[in-house]
């Protein structure tokens, strides 16, 4: 009972040819697309190279002029300066890259100072203490936080936070002290509460019921801050800073940038660190608890050593993001190419310089190529950091699988 006829050979031939063509097309297209994406690094390198054997044209550029202090007109000692466009009669443009690199790193470091404790604390809490239901809601919420556009964060930092902190410097400082101590106080009180009171306030939901407590701390701080300012800083914190520490408070400064960018990179560090921490086989934690360790002890003694590399790679990815973030630095930093260690001064990062200066730079000129060099540095840095983090993570995944095999 041969019901279905054999298909005509023409059709068979057509299908075969179509398949070969499609496979060839997919292969060519796939390789093409991947090559196009990878071409970014090549393009930057090719454009930057002529910088170093440029012929006679204007300012000579070599490694020395870029990275070492130079003796410029009007300065007695050699200094680092990034002044690509000098006013009429102001002399040669000054291309010292160091202030930009400094600004980039300073912004990134302050961002990490803010983001890392928050992100790792949040990751530890949600991996080990938080109730599963809350955790399932928290992760997408923080994902939304990650998607917040840089220009909005930059706007809020530059035009809302900066003037606010300008007016409420003392309150900001008080909050920095009061919030952690308020939390510790909450912990102490909770431990003394009877079981009847503890039941409606379980540890797994602490992230939510601590919110009103934070509000209380806020009000307390705003009430305390004028008192404290009068007590310790003679009533005016800013004047005190200037007189006793010699620090000048710039309206838009590294701290503002750090806070804004910390907010921006915190979710990505959190997500990766949480993955690493919660990926540690449950048997390890249970084993430690069976020996009488508290949750926190088992986190510290068992989970963290196992997940350490994963947490490190999370921080590395965060650093990569912080180094390359453009809009936040552009809007919150004041964009002054200074090289000071004071967190109260402004700064100018490489990414922000590129965004501001590149549209005006003459294609092929020294300034243009230097900005491309900055882009190349950003590219190489982030690419290397991310690759390293990725390798660390895949090692870790293999390790977990082995541990599970043993357990």
């Amino acid at each position, binding site marked *: 009972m041969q019901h279905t006829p054999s298909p005509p050979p023409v059709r068979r031939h057509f299908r075969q040819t179509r398949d070969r063509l499609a496979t060839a097309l997919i292969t060519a297209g796939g390789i093409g697309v991947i090559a196009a994406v990878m071409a970014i690094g090549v393009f930057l390198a090719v454009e930057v190279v002529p910088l170093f054997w440029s012929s006679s044209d204007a300012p000579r550029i070599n490694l020395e002029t870029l990275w070492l202090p130079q003796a410029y007109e009007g300065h007695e000692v050699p200094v680092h300066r990034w002044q690509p466009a000098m006013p009429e009669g102001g002399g040669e443009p000054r291309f010292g890259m160091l202030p930009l690199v400094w600004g980039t790193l300073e912004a990134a470091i302050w961002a990490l100072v803010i983001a890392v404790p928050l992100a790792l604390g949040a990751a530890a809490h949600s991996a080990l203490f938080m109730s599963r239901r809350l955790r399932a809601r928290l992760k997408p919420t923080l*994902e939304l936080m990650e998607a917040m556009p840089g220009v909005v964060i930059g706007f809020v930092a530059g035009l809302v936070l900066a003037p606010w902190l300008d007016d409420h410097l003392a309150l900001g400082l008080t909050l920095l002290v009061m919030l952690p101590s308020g939390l510790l106080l909450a912990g102490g009180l909770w431990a003394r509460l009877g079981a009847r009171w503890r039941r409606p306030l379980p540890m797994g939901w602490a992230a939510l019921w601590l919110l009103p407590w934070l509000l209380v701390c806020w009000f307390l701080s705003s009430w305390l801050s004028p008192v404290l300012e009068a007590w310790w800083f003679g009533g005016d914190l800013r004047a005190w800073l200037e007189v006793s520490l010699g620090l000048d408070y710039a309206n838009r400064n590294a701290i503002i940038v750090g806070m804004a960018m910390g907010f921006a990179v915190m979710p990505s560090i959190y997500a990766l660190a949480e993955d690493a921490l919660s990926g540690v086989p449950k048997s390890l934690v249970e084993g430690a608890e069976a020996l009488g360790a508290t949750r926190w002890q088992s986190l510290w003694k068992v989970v963290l050593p196992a997940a350490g590399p994963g947490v490190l790679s999370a921080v590395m990815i965060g650093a990569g993001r912080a180094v390359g973030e453009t809009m936040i630095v552009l809007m919150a930093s004041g964009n002054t190419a200074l090289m000071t260690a004071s967190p109260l001064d402004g700064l100018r990062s490489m990414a922000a310089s590129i965004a501001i200066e590149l549209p005006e730079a003459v294609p092929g000129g020294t300034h243009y190529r230097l900005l491309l060099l900055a*882009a190349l540095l950003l590219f190489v840095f982030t690419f290397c950091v991310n690759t390293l983090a990725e390798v660390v993570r895949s090692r870790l995944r293999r390790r977990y699988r082995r541990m599970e095999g043993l357990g």
Partner: protein
Amino acid sequence: MMTWRRPSRRAARSEGPWAWLAAGSVATSLALLALLLGLLAVRGLGHFWPAEVSLVALDDGRQLAGWAVKESPLPGGDGRERLYRTGNRDLDGAIWDWVDLDEIREVSHPSDLVVLERRRWSEFIGRLEAVETESGERISGESAWPALERRLTALEQHRASIERLRHQVIRPLVLRLEAGEASELERERLSAAQEQVREQQAALPKDILILETVDGRQLRQPLTEVTDALQPNAMGVGEKVVAWSQGVWRFLSEGPRAANTAGGVWPAIFGTVLMVVLMSIFVTPFGVLAAVYLNEVAHQGRLTHWVRIGVRNLAGVPSIVYGVFGLGVFVYGIGGHLDDWFFSSSLPSPTFGTGGLLWASLTLALLTLPVVIVATEEGLARIPESQREGALALGATRFEMLTRIVLPMAMPAMLTGVILAVARAAGEVAPLMLVGVAKLAPQVPVDGEFPFLHLDRKFMHLGYHIFDAAFHGGDVQAAMPLIYATALLLVLVILVLNLTAIFLRHHLRSRHGTLSK
């Protein structure tokens, strides 16, 4: 009888201080996020609410009317001062007034205060004395306000009909005329229509509003300059809601005014959406192609492994670097050559050799390519091998297997990837600053002129609009409410896109859960 018992919590030991700091960091992060969203929502939406206008009487007898904006301590002294937005830039030269709190004698909200939105010189705040009609008749007192409202409605209709005539009749005729295709009849129709417009413009009511500020200065304001008139203190909640929604609608549908510090954001919405749509058209096929190649065709060896890591890492490369690439390769490289070959007549002014819609969307497509590739690859990897073998065993070629079984099954994953890409692209500003965004582009890049979609034009963008209004506008304080509203709009768009992606991904996981039983 048995009772259910819970494990006693009394035995639970304290976790020590660090655990509380960890819990607090979650709470702090959530609080910060809520604070940011709340700030945007309240300030962004609140701007359109017709707030009560205060009449402030000062100790020295001076009076002013306006809205309180903020308070701060007096520089170098005790006490505080308050900033009022008083409008009337044509009379005062500024729209702000700082007032020392101690000098305020009385604040009241008289219901006869009017707020007029005008085309120039910001809003007027004060009292309406009378409406002077063309024939010189004065309508004053109680009946002045209803007369003004009637005239404004009529004016609105006039404007709409002129706009319709311009858009639907004159413009197509002019285009045909320019193309040299217009017949004699059409020429006549064109001149008739132009005559009609002139007539209608001439027929616009020439009434003059006699206005008086609270401190007694008079102003004669032609009605045609006024776009909207409100008496906020006399309005009920219902009327305010109506006025609020009209305000929101105007914000969404009108173009910016006064160097981006007032008016709406319609061109920016349009530019953002168009750019993102073009980007998805570029990124989807190429991203899927690359993912299919990596997952289905390529030899799964060491090289593929490293390529995969590389692609993943490109998602972490700063967006500004993509902008540099776009500027160097697309704009100066390809665009420059295109100009040399096809548009040499208009050189030295560049056509494609400068930033524009095409280059911006291509750059963002490149930037989001890794996102689409990674998401699609995940979807492909999730499809059980047995489905592929089933198709092959029925005599399908690889191409048929891919198009009829694998790609339809991976569709939700691809969609997730594209939505995430769109969400990322909609919020990126830094690369656009290099490859084609404009501070103010009066023409949207789509119109009735051939080729209808102008890929070489610059365009406006919500994100850049925020940056520009915040940092390059003259009066930042005046622009703040609009920046808040724009930021809220951008955040909402991105949140909705992300939520869709999260929902899709969740849906996808639960569906594949039933498959691999």
